[in-house]
Structures are given as structure tokens and as C-alpha cells.
């Protein structure tokens, strides 16, 4: 039997092909002999589809099936990408038993004809109004009437490859069609021949299948209706009859749920809840290009999403807010949360339970008096909490007024006046101070400490934070309170000692002012701590040159002995004066004074130099009028005197070399005492031009030299005199001598007698030989002088 099967063939005995034009598919029905059915053979069938117009096999498929004894024919469908009206399609089949190696003979081609020619009064285009997916291809055909030929066949916009099969049937393929605006492509076909031109238009639609529904979720607000929501997804570009359709199916009840979908930001659909509590909902979204599904299974009692509370109302005390609201859906036990928004942006959350009743409430305590709060509420199911409702609309409340809390910080400036003192009072709010109401005013009361006198009183509007009062020389107690519509704050008290105390202060005002140094963020002060005080106060003026000077003060505890004073008003180059007070029993005493700059700057004005005294070796300079006061932008630390001969570099003794930016060299002398405003530059050369400059310097340095003063040292007269003596006198003397030369010669340089020239030699008797020798024995000397005793002896 095995050998027989190998060689057996079971040809197709029956083949019928029909067309389904709406679905554009061929329906093929065929069969083989009864024996194959009886043997329940597994068979393979090779099916070929041919387009007669193109004369090509457009499709080949192997179809495997196991036959049964029922003898029913076999079926197979084929979807055509080209409309079946466009041309004839043929199908043939051959078979092979699985156990066999031999294919049967092909069946004869079974043909389904196309339209051939147009039956209408114009050409026909197929398909008409097809929906295709963006990026896919479409093939259309145009069939003209008998006797006509195709003149034109194109799409608008032009996305096509045109091919023609015969003059009466044209094919148009549009490849990778993109989405258009509007979302349809028009196809035009015109025939020509005979009388007149006839044409036809169709459109096809380009779109996308629907997206998978995102965030599909169902809930109820009131246990009466179920609402399902989901994200719509991207635009399919298909509208009207081709737009997306939505279907809801409940799996447990196996029923379609009639539901009207509404899509704005999100899509939603709702229906009434019946007795069913557990649901398994399947949403199908479908358009001509595809369908997607999403499911949600849930117990409706676990999916309560209440509506937002509404109609908030309430009332307040000074520290409490009693809030009420309405639930849109009664009958559900809710758990609610109230948000309290403070003026500073902080929020508090308070939880509360609500019953099944229609109204909920909460009392929120611990609030500040006379303060505006914004409240809103949201609720969730108390049992099986799922989600909070949306927040209710916010409601604003203002708590009632209460007494001002905390105290004011007060300070004073005392200026002696005729008969007493003018006291300027200042006050400011401390961090702990709360007005707790509107219409704040400040009440100032002052009375003598020692006498039982009637206190004086003024009331100042909250617009002001300072006032001036006059008191006499006695000690006074001054009290400042803040007042609102309800009550007063606790008083802030200060004691002004009697005028002797003030005089003492005045004498203390002669205290030495210590210089302090500024830093990037302020001016650092320190003071001697003393055990006798329970606090310290530092005061200063933000604008020392102005009136009023904007007096500021700061308080420090008893253990403080230093502080960094910062102020936005501090600027470089301004000298600020600080007074440090010790405070005990509300009485302040001046302890120390400090002065300093946030940052010293170089002096803007140079010392006005006068030349007092000039000699041939020195010059004395003076700048007595130059101030070293607070008008300077830094503490004057001293002066630099710069000197140089005009033509040469400096080489003065006891000076230091200073090189200017232009490379020239000056001699620099330093004076380290700011009060020393006179200086003598020595070792100058006489009869020489010098340039000089005097610069003051501070901790911020000095400005570059802009101007010099010029001097010329006189000739040195002593030298002149000496010169005179050395030159003139000898000259005169020489002239005299020359004039009276003989007298001078005779006087000063008499001629020394020469024996050879002596008259004696004319006395021939006295001459011995040739030599002119005077014989002594022949001469009777008048006198004899003995020069050398020994020789004289010889003689």
C-alpha cells in the first residue's frame, strides 16, 4: 500500500471561482476524488492566481489540509490588491498527497472576468473611496467605454506610476502614499474618442489605524454610573464614515454596552450601574484600517472617584476656621483632606472623615489672627480608597482680629535743648511681633520716674515709626505700645536717666573713637564685655551726612562682645560712627564709640601744597589746611612726598625709588603721621629744577599723581663768595704787584749781590790772578761776621 500511495495522484475534480466585490477577494472552491476523502488523506494543494491582462502569475500559495470523510469541498480566499473589476483573474490548482512524491496535473484555468468596458456614460475608476494606510501602495484602474481610449489618468497630488494595459484599461499605482491635507487623494481619468471628452473623478483616503487606547480605566463617582476614560491617541486622518468607532463589551455578562463616546482632551463613555459589582470591560477601537482593544477588570466598589466637594463656606474666630462643604454624591462614606494655604505660600493638610451625609466639615485651629487663608478640600472613598477627587474650588477666609502679640523694639536719640532734652523715639517690629488686626497705631506714653506726675501721651499712625518728644532734665520712663481694634500689645519700656546722666553721657561722648575695619559683608565691631549689663545695643546712622540720618540700632545679648554690622545702605568711602551701649533695667549707657568704613577709598583731593621755604639745598612744603576728618573717604594714614629733578632720575639721599607707570623714577618720602602737614626735602642740588608732589594715602591707597609743582633751587652764595675770594682777590693783588713790581721786588726779593758783579772787582789791586778773589788781608773790613767757627779758626 505504501508503494501505491507514493505513486498515487488525486487530481482536482472540481474548481469554481467567484468574486466578492465589496471585499475585493476571489473565493475559490474545489475538490478531489471521493477516494481521497475516504482515505482521509493529508494533501497539499498548489494554488496559482493569474491576471489575464498582465499574463503573469500574481500569486502562488501552498495550502495543506487533511481531508475528512464528509466529502465537503475545500475553500480558499484570495484578497486582490488590484480591483477585480480592472481585469480578468484566473485560478488553477494541482494536488499532491503528503505521502506521495508526484503532483497531479494542473486543473484548467478558471477565469473571473473583469468589467472590460465601462457601462456608464463616462469612464469608471476602481476602487472608489478606498481607505489605505499611510505609507502603503494603491493600484487603481480606469476603464473607458467601448470605442473610447484613455486620454489622461492621473492623481492629484501626483503620486503615481502609470502603466497602461490596453487603450481601454489603464492602471495607476501610487506608492508609499503620504497623508495629505485634505486627507483624500483625487484620481482623474479622461477618455477621448468620438463625440466629446468624458471624464471621471474618484477619491481615496489615506489614514492610519487607531492607536491602542492608553490609560483605559473605569470608575464611578456615585455608585450609579460607571465612567470609562482613555487617551484618544494620534490623529488617524479618517473622518465621517471612516472615523474611529468605539465598542464596549462586558465579558462576564457577555453583552455589548451601549455607550456614547465623547472625546475632547480624553475620551469617555458612561452607563448606569446595575446589580453587577465586578466588571471586565473590553474597549475596541476600530476604523477601516484596523482595530485595537484594551481591557479593564475591576470591582466597582473599589473604583470610587468622588466628585470634587462644592459650595465651601465657613466662619472664623481669631485662631480657628470652621469649614463646611457639600458632597455632590451622598450615600458614599468619604475621607476628606483640607489644604490650608498660608500667605507665605506654606500649606498644611488636615484630614477628616465624612459620613454618608451630604455635608462635611472640619475645624482648623492654630491659625494667626487677622490673616487670610485659602482653603480647598478633596475627598476619597473611606473604604477601599482609590483616588482623590479633584480639589474643590478654593475659598478664602480671614481670621478675626486679636490683641497684637509680641513687643516693639524701641530706641532713642537724645539731644540737649534749652530747658531739657529733645528725645527722638524710634520703633520697629520684632520678628515675634504680630499686628493681629488692622488699623494699627502706636501709643507713646512718657512720665517722670520719681514724681507722681500725670503721664503724657500721643498716638501715632502706623505710617510712622519715629516721633520726637521734649522732656526736662528729670529721669523719664517712656513706654510704646501697638494698638489695634481689639487691644494693645505688651509695652516696650525705656528709661531716660536725668540730665546729669546725659551730661555724663556727653562727657563720655568725648570717648575716644576706635577705628574699625570693614569687610565684604559689613563692619566688624567688638567691645569690652561687662557683667553689669543684661544686653548691649549698637546704633549708627545709615546716612551720616544727611538729616535725618536714618538711625538704626541692633540689640545683643549679655554674652555678646562683638558683632558684624551689615546694612544695605553701607557704601565704600563713607565713615560710619557706631555707639555701643550697655543696657540694664531698660536703661542704656554709652560705653564705647567706634568709627570705620565699609571699605576705605583713596582720597579724591590732593593736599593743597604751599612752598614755604626754598634754599639751594632744600625746600619746605606745607599743606596745613588739608582735612583728616570724616569728610575723607578713608582714614588718612599719612602722606607721600615725591621729588625728582626735571631732567634726570632721582638720586636723592634718604629717599626711596618710586617708578611711575611711564617708567620715570621719583624719589619718595613717607610721612606716617596724618597730622604732620609740613615737610622739608633736603639734599637738593642748587640751581636745579625739581618737580614735586604730595599725596595723602588711606587704607584704600592713593590716587595716581596728576599734577606736580615745580621749583628751581637758587645758586649757592657761599660758594660764590669763596669763588670770589679765590679768584678776584688774587687777581687784584697780582695787578698791584705788577704795577709796583720794582718796589715789591726790592722789598720782597732783593737782589743777592754777586761777587762777579761786585764793584770791588773793579779794584784791581785786590784781584789775585784771574780769579776774582778778594784778598782779605788787603782789605780792612768794617765788620766781620763769623759764619763757621771751624773755618774761621782755619783762617
Amino acid at each position, binding site marked *: 500500500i505504501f508503494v501505491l500511495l507514493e505513486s498515487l495522484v488525486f487530481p482536482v475534480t472540481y474548481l469554481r471561482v467567484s468574486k466578492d466585490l465589496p471585499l475585493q477577494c476571489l473565493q475559490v472552491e474545489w475538490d478531489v476524488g471521493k477516494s481521497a476523502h475516504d482515505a482521509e488523506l493529508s494533501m497539499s494543494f498548489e494554488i496559482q492566481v493569474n491576471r489575464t491582462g498582465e499574463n503573469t502569475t500574481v500569486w502562488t500559495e501552498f495550502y495543506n489540509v487533511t481531508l475528512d470523510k464528509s466529502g465537503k469541498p475545500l475553500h480558499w480566499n484570495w484578497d486582490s490588491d488590484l480591483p477585480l473589476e480592472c481585469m480578468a483573474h484566473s485560478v488553477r490548482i494541482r494536488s499532491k498527497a503528503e505521502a506521495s512524491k508526484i503532483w497531479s496535473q494542473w486543473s484548467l484555468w478558471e477565469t473571473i472576468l473583469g468589467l472590460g468596458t465601462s457601462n456608464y456614460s463616462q469612464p469608471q475608476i476602481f476602487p472608489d473611496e478606498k481607505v489605505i494606510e499611510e505609507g502603503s501602495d494603491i493600484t487603481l484602474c480606469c476603464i473607458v467605454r467601448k470605442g473610447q481610449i484613455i486620454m489622461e489618468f492621473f492623481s492629484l497630488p501626483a503620486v503615481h506610476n502609470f502603466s497602461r494595459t490596453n487603450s481601454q484599461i489603464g492602471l495607476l499605482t501610487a506608492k508609499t502614499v503620504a497623508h495629505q*491635507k485634505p486627507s483624500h487623494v*483625487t484620481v482623474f481619468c479622461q477618455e477621448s474618442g468620438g463625440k466629446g471628452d468624458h471624464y471621471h*473623478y474618484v477619491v481615496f*483616503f489615506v489614514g492610519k489605524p487607531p492607536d491602542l487606547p492608553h490609560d483605559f480605566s473605569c470608575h464611578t463617582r456615585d455608585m450609579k454610573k460607571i465612567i470609562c476614560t482613555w487617551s484618544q491617541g494620534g490623529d488617524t486622518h479618517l*473622518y465621517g464614515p471612516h472615523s474611529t468607532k468605539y465598542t464596549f463589551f462586558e465579558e462576564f455578562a457577555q453583552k455589548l454596552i451601549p455607550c456614547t463616546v465623547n472625546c475632547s482632551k480624553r475620551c469617555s463613555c458612561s452607563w448606569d450601574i446595575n446589580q453587577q459589582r465586578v466588571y471586565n470591560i473590553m474597549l475596541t477601537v476600530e476604523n477601516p484600517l484596523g482595530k485595537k482593544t484594551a481591557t479593564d477588570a475591576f470591582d466597582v466598589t473599589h473604583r470610587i472617584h468622588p466628585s470634587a466637594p462644592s459650595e465651601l463656606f465657613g466662619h472664623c474666630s481669631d485662631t480657628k476656621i470652621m469649614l463646611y462643604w457639600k458632597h455632590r454624591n451622598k450615600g458614599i462614606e468619604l475621607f476628606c483632606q483640607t489644604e490650608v494655604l498660608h500667605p507665605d505660600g506654606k500649606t498644611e493638610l488636615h484630614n477628616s472623615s465624612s459620613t454618608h451625609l451630604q455635608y462635611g466639615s472640619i475645624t482648623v485651629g492654630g491659625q494667626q489672627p487677622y490673616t487670610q487663608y485659602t482653603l480647598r478640600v478633596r475627598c476619597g472613598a473611606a473604604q477601599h480608597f482609590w483616588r482623590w477627587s479633584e480639589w474643590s474650588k478654593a475659598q478664602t477666609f480671614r481670621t478675626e482680629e486679636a490683641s497684637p502679640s509680641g513687643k516693639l523694639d524701641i530706641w532713642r536719640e537724645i539731644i540737649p535743648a534749652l530747658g531739657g532734652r529733645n528725645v527722638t523715639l524710634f520703633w520697629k517690629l520684632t520678628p515675634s511681633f504680630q499686628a493681629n488686626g488692622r488699623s494699627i497705631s502706636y501709643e507713646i506714653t512718657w512720665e517722670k520716674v520719681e514724681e507722681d506726675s500725670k503721664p503724657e501721651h500721643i498716638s501715632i499712625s502706623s505710617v510712622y515709626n519715629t516721633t520726637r518728644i521734649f522732656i526736662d532734665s528729670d529721669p523719664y520712663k517712656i513706654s510704646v505700645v501697638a494698638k489695634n481694634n481689639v487691644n494693645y500689645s505688651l509695652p516696650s519700656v525705656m528709661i531716660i536717666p536725668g540730665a546729669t546722666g546725659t551730661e555724663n553721657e556727653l562727657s563720655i561722648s568725648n570717648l575716644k573713637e576706635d577705628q574699625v575695619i570693614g569687610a565684604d559683608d559689613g563692619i566688624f565691631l567688638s567691645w569690652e564685655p561687662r557683667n553689669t549689663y543684661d544686653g548691649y545695643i549698637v546704633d549708627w546712622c545709615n546716612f551720616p551726612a544727611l538729616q535725618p540720618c536714618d538711625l538704626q540700632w541692633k540689640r545683643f545679648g549679655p554674652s555678646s562682645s562683638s558683632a558684624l554690622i551689615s546694612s544695605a545702605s553701607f557704601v565704600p568711602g563713607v565713615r560710619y560712627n557706631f555707639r555701643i551701649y550697655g543696657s540694664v533695667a531698660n536703661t542704656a549707657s554709652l560705653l564705647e564709640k567706634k568709627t570705620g568704613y565699609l571699605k576705605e577709598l583713596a582720597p579724591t583731593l590732593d593736599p593743597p601744597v604751599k612752598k614755604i621755604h626754598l634754599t639751594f639745598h632744600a625746600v619746605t612744603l606745607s599743606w596745613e589746611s588739608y582735612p583728616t576728618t570724616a569728610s575723607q573717604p578713608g582714614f588718612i594714614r599719612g602722606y607721600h612726598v615725591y621729588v625728582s629733578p626735571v631732567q634726570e632720575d632721582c638720586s636723592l639721599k634718604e629717599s626711596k625709588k618710586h617708578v611711575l607707570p611711564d617708567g620715570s623714577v621719583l624719589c619718595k618720602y613717607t610721612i606716617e603721621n596724618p597730622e604732620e602737614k609740613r615737610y622739608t626735602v633736603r639734599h637738593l642740588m642748587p640751581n636745579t629744577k625739581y618737580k614735586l608732589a604730595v599725596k595723602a594715602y588711606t587704607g584704600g591707597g592713593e590716587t595716581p599723581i596728576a599734577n606736580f609743582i615745580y621749583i628751581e633751587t637758587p645758586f649757592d652764595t657761599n660758594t660764590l663768595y669763596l669763588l670770589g675770594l679765590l679768584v678776584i682777590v688774587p687777581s687784584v693783588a697780582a695787578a698791584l704787584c705788577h704795577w709796583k713790581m720794582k718796589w715789591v721786588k726790592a722789598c720782597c726779593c732783593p737782589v743777592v749781590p754777586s761777587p762777579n758783579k761786585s764793584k770791588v772787582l773793579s779794584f784791581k789791586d785786590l784781584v789775585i790772578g784771574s780769579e776774582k778773589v778778594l784778598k782779605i788781608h788787603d782789605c780792612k773790613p768794617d765788620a766781620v761776621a763769623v759764619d763757621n767757627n771751624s773755618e774761621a779758626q782755619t783762617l
Partner: protein
Amino acid sequence: CRSNVYEQTRKQVALLNATAQDLFSLYLKCQGEPFSSETDKLCSPNGFFFPDFHENRTSEKEVMVAMYKLFAFLNASLGNITRDQEELNPTAKELLDRLHNTTKTTQGLISNLTCLLCKNYNIFQVDVRYGPNSKGKRAFKKKQQGCQVLRKYVQVISHAARIL
């Protein structure tokens, strides 16, 4: 009728006349090709019914009746066109807004003309011939029919405005 109904009618017709061409141009643009390039061929009114409005009508009564027929026809046609465009071009917001506004003005005109015909001429009924319903037609045919109506409307409304 209000005392100024004639004046209001005249203004309404003037408004429609002023906006007709823009409506037609926008309609062509929104249909895509070949409507802009083949307007004469596709939107020709040949073989297509549209109530006429001849300028040589003698009596005011005839004018009023003709106008009533015109605007009743237009109102129905605009209904078809709007429905079709909501289906074919739902994203063409400006076109749909203009169609809605033109429809509203047309309906106001019908109301005023009804009152005038009744009050001045004791006419309570006018036979109106309407155009073909585009429902169920192919998409291209719907677009073409709307184009034909609006093109003719531009011509006829100018006649009506001139007479008033």
C-alpha cells in the same frame, strides 16, 4: 415685524454679498486639487438647479418672493455642504465657521422675509424648489456639488444686493 426689518434685510444681503467670494475661495482651497485648477470645469452650474434672481423683476412683491426662494434654497444647500465638510474636512475650522455664519445670516434673512411677505403682501406660503440632497453620494460628488452651489451663489447674491 420690527420697524427696521427692511433695512436689516438689506444689510444682511449686503453682508452675504461681501463674504460670498471669500467663502467660495476658501471652499475651493479646502477641497484640494483639482478644484482650484479646474474650477470652471468641475463647478460649472450647467445641468444644475439654482434659483435665479433676475434683475428685471417689476414689483417689490416679486423681488421678495424670489429672495425668499433663493434663501430657502441656500439654507438647505448650506446644510448639506456643512454636513459633508464636517465629514470630509473636519479639521478645516475656518471653512466650517464661515459656513455656519453664512447659514445663520441666511436663516435670519428667511425670518425677516417671512415677516415682510406676511405683513406687506399677505403671502403665507411660498413653493420652494430645493437642490439634490448630497447624502449617500460619493465623496467627490459631494465636494463637486458644494462647489457648484457656492459658485452660483456668489453670482446670484451680487444681483440681489444690487437690487436692494
